[in-house]
């Protein structure tokens, strides 16, 4: 393929991709017009969880650091947003920014040891961090309400004085923030820093040998991922208006990592789909099979590893590959 033809093909693919993304967003925007409040509130929670999965993908898929403590920053963001909602203001953007900052700061305080390791050690250290934060949420009763959780959060407002009571409006707010954060994550992965992240994932020793301070690179990614996880936490409570230690438990951390693996790490959109599947299975189906949600998720995980070694995102690669072969000479 000549350079010009390649550029033209890339332009076409980019336009097609943009059209596809726009279609998806429009569909998501239109959904409240067709669905009732229950499925819409479920979708809101899925979007919040998907953003959490996308932030973990930045860490796991792009930088090669699988974390079992990512729910901690989600929880920090959720508690921050809920506390601000109860004590200060129902204004959702304020809650969002505070949760973003809190998630980032929490990641900054806890991540600097973890990023000096990799592989299993990283997994164990993040697990420990997650458990500590979970314990904190459970036992600091005066602030967090302990194991009863934090109740009494008023409905959010976006414009002053107009609480969003209808599930559809809350959903639109969550969707808007989700799209915004997703676009930012997408932009980061396409930047030179995104290339640096993938370099660390592929070959950390080589990165050091060309002059990268890889621990610092990992620390920056960890803080960004923590901040976005915090933002996801604020979206979560914007819908649920309730947060308890269960929201930052090991189970959530494992579920979100599962979502990344099932969806296909390193693609951002794959883990979002994975998050949708994981939440649907966990919430919806488990009521039919009486508490066997984890079992179904385990089966889904085994199936994903065998049938879709690169997750949902891998399916796209397969299709493109087949198509180019068909149209080839």
């Amino acid at each position, binding site marked *: 393929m000549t350079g010009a033809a390649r550029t033209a093909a890339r332009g076409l693919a980019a336009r097609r991709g943009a059209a596809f993304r726009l279609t998806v967003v429009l569909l998501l925007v239109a959904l409240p017009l067709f669905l009732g409040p229950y499925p819409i509130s479920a979708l809101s929670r899925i979007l919040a969880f998907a953003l959490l999965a996308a932030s973990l993908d930045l860490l796991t898929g792009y930088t090669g650091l699988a974390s079992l403590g990512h729910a901690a920053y989600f929880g920090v963001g959720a508690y921050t947003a809920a506390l601000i909602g109860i004590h200060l203001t129902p204004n959702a953007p304020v809650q969002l920014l505070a949760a973003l900052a809190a998630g980032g700061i929490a990641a900054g305080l806890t991540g600097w040891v973890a990023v000096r390791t990799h592989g299993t050690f990283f997994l164990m250290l993040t697990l420990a961090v997650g458990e500590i934060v979970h314990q904190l949420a459970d036992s600091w009763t005066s602030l967090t309400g302990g194991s009863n959780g934090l109740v009494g959060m008023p409905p959010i407002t976006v414009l002053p004085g107009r609480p969003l009571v209808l599930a559809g409006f809350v959903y639109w707010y969550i969707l808007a923030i989700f799209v915004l954060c997703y676009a930012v994550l997408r932009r980061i992965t396409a930047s030179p820093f995104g290339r*640096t992240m*993938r370099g660390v994932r592929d070959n950390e020793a080589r990165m*050091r040998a060309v002059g990268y301070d890889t621990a610092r690179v990992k620390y920056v990614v960890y803080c960004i991922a923590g901040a976005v996880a915090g933002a996801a936490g604020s979206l979560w409570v914007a819908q649920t208006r309730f947060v308890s230690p269960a929201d930052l438990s090991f189970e959530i951390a494992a579920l979100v990592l599962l979502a990344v693996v099932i969806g296909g790490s390193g693609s951002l959109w794959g883990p979002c789909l994975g998050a949708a599947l994981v939440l649907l299975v966990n919430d919806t189906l488990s009521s039919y099979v009486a508490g066997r949600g984890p079992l179904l998720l385990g089966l889904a995980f085994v199936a994903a590893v065998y049938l879709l070694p690169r997750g949902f995102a891998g399916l796209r690669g397969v299709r493109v590959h087949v198509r180019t072969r068909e149209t080839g000479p």
Partner: protein
Amino acid sequence: MTGAMTAELRLDDVSWHFGRVKAVDGVSLAVERGARHAVIGPNGAGKTTLFGVVAGTLRPSAGRVLVGGRDVTRLSEHARARLGVVRTFQHSSVFLSMTALDNVALAVQRVRGVGTRLWLPARRYVEVTERALGHLESVGLADRAGESAATLSHGERRQLEVAVALAARPRLLLLDEPTAGMSVEESSRFTDVIRELPVDVTVLVIEHDLDVVFRLASHVTVLHLGRVLADGTPEEVRDSEEVQRAYLGAADSSELFFSPEEERT
């Protein structure tokens, strides 16, 4: 050592011990600026360990490492790389999931100080892409720029590694068995690339292929059991009785340096 004052790299009595094993044992060495300096020796002589100590991957148990007169013994590996101490690895070490171009672009964007920019798309940094292409061209991989590094042949990966190292703007280039696994053409192309380097780039190379050593090196150091056995011009080293004595029964000195397998130290 006459060049001690102008030495680009100086090792002062450097040792690296692992338990009771003295992989490198009191090595002193001076590499002059612009030299093409080869380190040879049989398996287990401590060559790769010595490289690790110079590059900063390993912290020496004793002794000092000076680059351009500056003591870098306590500097981390990436800090040394930023000073221009750039190494390649014995076993091809590239970024397998990325294209050849992205491999080199990683080094280029670090040198140009844009490796941590996280807003504009990477492809907007046209000068990074162009420089990276230039480096690929210099090692003969320009037509493979868009290929994934995983699909490159073994020899091509070695070339890619050299391109990445050159893109990191080295003043002291450390090459660990660069021609191992290369075809004859690839290997001669490689020696051309090294010869065409600017004269102010100093090259320290571990090499088993004596042809390459004699074509490239202006200076040869022989390591044996972690110690310097001989040091001088290629001719001096080849004719050294001490070197020949150390290897019993080696009538033809070229056999001394021949080792069919890659070493691991």
